[in-house]
């Protein structure tokens, strides 16, 4: 029946993650470091407010933009934590996860022929969403020696006059890289110079382990040029609730809302009510999770360095991205052999773009006992490979 599928869907390459997921699914007793979501359960106070909302019969649609109370609380929260000012009336749209927000941005601003600049490696959805919106993707490589920060020289090299949108996604999945203010300022000049719009996916901003996260939208002149995307999944362990949001200039949000109203109508009300509770009373629970990730992060970095592998220190998100080129295996070969020989699942760096070659993504959203066991097995695997060279 493939003949019924649209050509651009048929030609869309499947996610590299999906391929690996299918392989892992055939194995038993796998210790997986392949998961891109928290291992914690949503804080109970948040769950309880969702349950209560059902008991109260709050089972209807909300406005397209989302519950006003949630938008208002978000506006206050963004001002307080990231120094971002958004009017809850017309500058914030609640979406079904940050993923929907990414899709909306691409569809609302891109036209056939437009080029989207996407840092490489990065989260798997940006390029497909851009392609589905009819645009072309230009990857901008980032490098381990630069701690995977996006550099303006690489941007200039990748730039073409058709470029319209730049994706910024820091802290970064899969590398764990962050961008400090001094790293972002030259990017802002570049954006200004070429009259670009920016999709800033700040979903991991709470998981910044040194210093505080600087949002691109907070830089001088960047507020109106940025569509700020975030959500509750990573910070509050709420992946399954599917609540995200996008904030930006009222004209842009109004365009995004047009698509949202015809496709999603609104984000699920139970999740919106629970998210409101998360903002109001789960900051301590959130901090506890962040502290736990930070401790696990140190265990992982040390573990890989002790194996003799290069591993730059990731300062955000919950991934380490060690360099495995010493083993003379490609990312995919490494991940497959590790899975078959030691029953440990990691994701090949190439699943996140060509610059991921030579790296594997290991999530540390697992208990320390699991991480230690996984590190033991990976050490055994790496030692056996190195001894054969």
């Amino acid at each position, binding site marked *: 029946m493939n003949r019924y599928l649209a050509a651009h869907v048929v030609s869309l390459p499947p996610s590299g*993650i999906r391929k690996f*997921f299918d392989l892992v699914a055939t194995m038993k007793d796998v210790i997986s470091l392949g998961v891109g*979501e928290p291992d914690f359960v949503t804080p109970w106070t948040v769950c309880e407010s969702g349950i209560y909302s059902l008991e109260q019969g709050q089972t209807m649609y909300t406005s397209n933009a989302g519950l006003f109370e949630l938008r208002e609380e978000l506006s206050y929260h963004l001002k307080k934590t990231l120094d971002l000012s958004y009017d809850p009336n017309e500058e914030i749209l609640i979406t079904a996860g940050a993923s929907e927000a990414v899709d909306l941005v691409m569809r609302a601003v891109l036209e056939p022929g437009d080029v989207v600049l996407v840092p490489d490696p990065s989260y*798997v*959805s940006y390029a497909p969403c851009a392609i589905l919106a009819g645009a072309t993707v230009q990857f901008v490589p980032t490098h381990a020696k630069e701690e995977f920060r996006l550099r303006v020289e690489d941007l200039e090299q990748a730039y073409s006059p058709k470029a319209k949108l730049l994706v910024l996604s820091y802290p970064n999945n899969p590398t764990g890289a962050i961008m400090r203010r001094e790293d972002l300022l030259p990017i802002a000049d570049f954006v200004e110079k070429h009259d670009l719009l920016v999709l800033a996916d700040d979903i991991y901003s709470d998981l910044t382990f040194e210093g505080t996260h600087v949002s691109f939208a907070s830089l001088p002149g960047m507020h109106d040029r940025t569509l700020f995307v975030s959500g509750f999944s990573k910070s509050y362990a709420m992946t399954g609730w599917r609540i995200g949001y996008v904030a930006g200039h009222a004209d842009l949000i109004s365009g995004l809302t047009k698509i949202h109203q015809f496709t999603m109508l609104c984000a699920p009300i139970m999740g919106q009510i629970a998210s409101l509770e998360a903002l109001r009373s789960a900051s301590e629970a959130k901090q506890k999770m962040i502290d736990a990730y930070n*401790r696990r992060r*140190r*265990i992982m970095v040390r573990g890989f360095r002790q194996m003799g592998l290069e591993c730059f220190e990731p300062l955000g998100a919950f991934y380490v991205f060690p360099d495995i080129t010493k083993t003379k295996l490609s990312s995919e070969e490494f991940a497959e052999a590790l899975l078959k020989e030691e029953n440990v699942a990691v*994701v090949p760096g190439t699943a996140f773009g060509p610059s991921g070659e030579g790296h594997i993504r290991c999530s540390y959203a697992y208990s320390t006992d699991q991480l230690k066991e996984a590190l033991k097995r990976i050490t055994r695997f790496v030692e056996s490979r190195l001894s054969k060279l």
Partner: protein
Amino acid sequence: MLSDEDRKLLKLIEEDCRLTHEDLSIETGLTPEYIAQRISHWEKEKIIVDYRPLINWDRAGDEKVSALIEVRVLPQRGYGFDKIAKRIQKFDEIKSLFLMSGGYDLSLLIEGKTMQDVALFVAEKLAPLEHVQSTATHFVLRRYKQDGVALMGEDEILQRLVVSP
């Protein structure tokens, strides 16, 4: 005042006292020497009071009876409640003892092998003490959660996907 680092270190030890100094050093980024020095100081100052596991005796199949006892006492001039509390706490049967606000004064958690044991202890040792005015004994029927840990076993949670973006 505790520094943030020290507070985090203490919390980590409170959560899992089996962590070695090296484990603690890796997880916090503090040096093992600093950690050893702080722990030894806290032990000396009775800030870290003891290291012991939380055992679910019900699951071990060893029957024990626990009771919470509300005690009203007459405070003594010059000593308040401290003198009588210090006397009461000497009994090995008493596992915890708190001075309370509200309708009674002391709250005791007591353990025995049988209900009879507990009842006898209250009748023969506790109630007759000078300054003890009255007692009310509440037997524990089931432990659901203790020291922040659920003892009944959590409901099974749907597993996460093995690999996800």
